[in-house]
């Protein structure tokens, strides 16, 4: 097991060094432009809602829509073939190509044909298959796989493409600039398209009512491939079918914006094949275009390959709503640093990639990279069809866990792990997933537990067996937990305006007890009476390891423990944003609707709550004033997804602090992720951006504050000065 982890760490290190910088620059550029582009769209949320509805309906009615599409395509004079799997699809395509006696097939970029390995199948028949999308062609020449859903050669710099062309073609005058490289590629590919026999494209959408394919490209190669040769084969997953042409506009308005931040991609071809355009033979200098034949053949191959089963799978079904824009990859901090060659499987990569791989390939392929999703939720608000991508990744992780070899070395932590998970679960997952239990034992035996944990042999064993990186400081458990402390103290508030339950998350309770105490002091100073009962952990830790059954148990226990407080009119105040995010997002999967609504309605993030109290007239003078105190603040990713980070800055501003906020969205730690030896270096690499922002002449002397536990730990590792939760700053 540890050998596997080591190999993976080495592979990640290699990719960070070789491909990381090109990927980082490109994805961050796309992501920034996406944010700007959607901010300009006044009906963005409306379009997302509409896109989601259309997909839900289309997948729901898929068999019916395919039947309707068949009629439309056949009425137009084309052929529709629904292929069960890759072999079936490839057999059909090979037959069409063989019937044409085709020597060359020109293709425009299509992930579905990558999934099927169509190129290999045709090449085995001696057919010359040429990718015409410039990025895809680069990948083909280099004999690589695409590293991104929409930008297959995103991992390559201009220089490396120039080197590649020089090696492959040895041209007299090697192209160097982007312009020269483009001209070189266009000229070569132009010649190849010129006398190709078959053009093959994918399809972004297919409309059942008219049999129209929507092909979105900026280069124009899809148009060339579709209408230059006299045979056109389009290959698409069955999930691409939408009811009608009226449904296209929300997708088209969202696709380019979500992917690259452009308003609309240069060409949206809406082809209702066979297209009327004359077939082209550029040697013909006799026949005017209008007199040439337009006798085209058209084949639409719709591919099932696991999709119909995904449709029946309640958890994976959402994956079929994906329109392959790549926004989830671009917004993912880990993807930005390693790209699709690490963060990908056989074909698909990035956030939604594990769902696709699990559905069309295998759990093994998904397992290759599933762990790279930390569940930070940064991709959630960017997905045009509102897919809960982190949830899909959690589900896939859970299935991988359950499929794991039952012969584990579990005996080491078995005593610590009252979880609901199968015996074969990886030890590292089990260890991190049961962090609450560990913390309980840790506090009960502190400080001895801390000395032991830090002792060299123990660190060595933790790393060997459970993959805990020895370079990472371990949390220091406190003997007196927050709950213990609260039980024995006397409240300072006499005439409370409100009553709250401060949710004692595992970290606040066992490790960062100071921030819990600061929260109590702050709330009391604002006239609120505070209870800190012992409440089970939220389930975030097991959830992030894909231990869904255990997480669900926690959800029920937490609700059970909090319900009576909510019934008594108490608000629930949460310090750890990732726990609040559990209540807001994942608990919807675990609890009855009414229960989760009640919990959500009465739960607040601590600074959000302070903000609300101040806005409702609580006395700000009771808190520690800023007096211009210079602060550098890093919000937490899930807090941002929920739109809750602004409260913290508002409160600090109001109290007179001089706040600078980080605009890198991610610290790179994401809970247990940064503890694992496989990912430690990636975690630190991601964190570097944050460290840089807080080390400029303008920020380097500022007090660092951060909302999340992981962020605080990561910042402590990255910077030489300590960091604190904002509540500790303002607490009296």
């Amino acid at each position, binding site marked *: 097991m540890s050998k596997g982890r080591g190999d993976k760490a080495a592979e990640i290190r290699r990719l960070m060094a070789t491909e990381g910088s090109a990927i980082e620059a490109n994805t961050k550029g796309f992501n920034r432009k996406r944010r700007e582009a959607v901010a300009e769209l006044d009906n963005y949320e409306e379009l997302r809602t509409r896109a989601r509805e259309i997909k839900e309906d289309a997948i729901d009615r898929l068999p019916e829509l395919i039947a309707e599409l068949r009629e439309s395509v056949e009425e137009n004079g084309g052929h529709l073939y629904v292929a069960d799997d890759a072999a079936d699809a490839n057999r059909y395509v090979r037959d069409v190509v063989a019937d044409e006696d085709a020597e060359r097939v020109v293709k425009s970029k299509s992930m579905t044909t990558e999934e099927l390995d169509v190129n290999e199948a045709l090449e085995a028949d001696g057919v010359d298959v040429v990718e015409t999308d410039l990025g895809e062609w680069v990948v083909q020449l280099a004999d690589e796989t695409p590293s991104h859903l929409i930008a297959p050669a995103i991992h390559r710099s201009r220089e490396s493409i120039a080197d590649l062309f020089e090696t492959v073609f040895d041209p007299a005058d090697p192209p160097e600039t982007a312009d020269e490289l483009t001209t070189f590629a266009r000229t070569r590919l132009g010649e190849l398209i010129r006398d190709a026999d078959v053009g093959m494209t994918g399809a972004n959408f297919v409309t059942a009512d008219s049999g129209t394919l929507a092909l979105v490209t900026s280069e124009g190669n899809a148009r060339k491939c579709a209408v230059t040769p006299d045979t056109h084969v389009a290959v698409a997953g069955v999930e691409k079918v939408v009811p009608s042409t009226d449904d296209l506009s929300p997708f088209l308005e969202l696709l380019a914006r979500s992917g690259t931040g452009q*308003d609309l991609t240069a060409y949206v071809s809406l082809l209702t094949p066979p297209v009327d355009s004359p077939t082209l033979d550029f040697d013909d200098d006799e*026949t005017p275009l209008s007199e040439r034949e337009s006798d085209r053949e058209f084949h639409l191959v719709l591919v099932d390959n696991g999709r119909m089963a995904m449709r029946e799978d309640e958890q994976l079904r959402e994956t079929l709503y994906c329109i392959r824009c790549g926004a989830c990859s671009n917004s993912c901090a880990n993807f930005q640093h390693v790209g699709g060659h690490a963060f990908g499987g056989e074909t698909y990569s990035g956030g939604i990639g594990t769902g696709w791989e699990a559905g069309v390939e295998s759990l093994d392929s998904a397992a290759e990279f599933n762990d790279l999703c930390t569940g930070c939720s940064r991709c959630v608000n960017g997905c045009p069809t509102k897919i809960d991508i982190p949830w899909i990744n959690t589900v896939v992780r859970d299935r991988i866990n359950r499929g794991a070899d039952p012969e584990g070395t579990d005996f080491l932590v078995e005593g610590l792990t009252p979880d609901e998970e199968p015996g074969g679960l990886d030890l590292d997952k089990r260890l991190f997933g049961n962090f609450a239990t560990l913390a309980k034992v840790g506090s009960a035996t502190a400080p001895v537990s801390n000395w032991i944990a830090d002792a060299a042999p123990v660190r060595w064993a933790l790393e060997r067996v459970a993959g805990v990186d020895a370079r990472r400081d371990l949390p220091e458990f406190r003997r007196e937990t927050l709950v213990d402390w609260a039980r024995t103290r006397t409240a300072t508030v006499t005439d409370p305006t409100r009553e709250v339950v401060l949710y004692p998350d595992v970290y606040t309770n066992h490790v960062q007890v100071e921030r819990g105490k600061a929260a109590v002091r702050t709330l009391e100073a604002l006239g609120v009476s505070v209870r800190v009962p012992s409440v089970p952990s939220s389930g975030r830790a097991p959830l992030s390891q894909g231990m869904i059954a255990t997480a669900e148990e926690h959800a029920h226990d937490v609700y059970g423990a909090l319900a009576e407080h909510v019934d008594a009119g108490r608000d629930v105040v949460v310090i750890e944003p990732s726990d609040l995010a559990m209540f807001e997002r994942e608990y919807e999967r675990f609890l009855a609707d009414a229960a989760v609504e009640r919990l959500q309605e009465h739960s607040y993030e601590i600074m959000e709550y302070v903000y609300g109290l101040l806005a409702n007239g609580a006395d700000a003078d009771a808190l520690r004033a800023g007096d211009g105190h210079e602060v550098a603040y890093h919000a937490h990713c899930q807090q941002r997804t929920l739109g809750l980070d602004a409260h913290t800055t508002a409160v600090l501003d109001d109290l007179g602090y001089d706040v600078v906020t980080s605009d890198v969205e991610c610290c790179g730690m994401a809970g247990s992720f940064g503890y694992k030896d496989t990912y430690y270096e990636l975690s630190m690499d991601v964190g570097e951006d944050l460290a840089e922002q807080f080390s400029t002449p303008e920020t380097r002397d500022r007090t660092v504050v951060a909302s999340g536990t992981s962020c605080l730990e990561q910042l402590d590792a990255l910077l030489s000065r300590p960091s604190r939760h904002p509540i500790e700053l303002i607490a009296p």
Partner: protein
Amino acid sequence: MATTTNPTLSTFADALDELGVALTRTTADEFAATLDDVVRDPAVGVPLPFDVTYPDRVTVDPTPAALERAATGVTPATFGVANYGSVLLPSTADGAEPVSLYPELHVPVVRAGDVLPDLPEALDRFGDMARTDGASTVVATGPSATADMGELVLGAHGPEAVHVVMLDE
């Protein structure tokens, strides 16, 4: 060049400007002269469904070989989409699709009255044509482009420049 107070047309003009696409307005009478100024030689075009005549410089209904040599392609646009600066280019049996795609300069000709405010409206009209006649179209927005070679380059497989000629009637 006529100025306009029609909000749809001025939105269209602004959007084209932002895309770096030139726009020239003309009338049926001045069409030949206007086009004469716009095209690069050798120029080819497909017959236009408007009441206009081509200047002699443009080879109408070219052979494939002439198309391959051409520097300019002139084609009709069924609709304009004002907010995006897009034009809807029909695929026709006389080769509007390849003529709009192969030469380095593309000149779509659109009637002012066919410029629609937004994409849903254009697709609505296209949808009817697709369902009844199996029509095909390309919603083209600016020139062809690629970012695959390390930075944005105009003119990948398609034209590197677009010059819209708008026909006032």
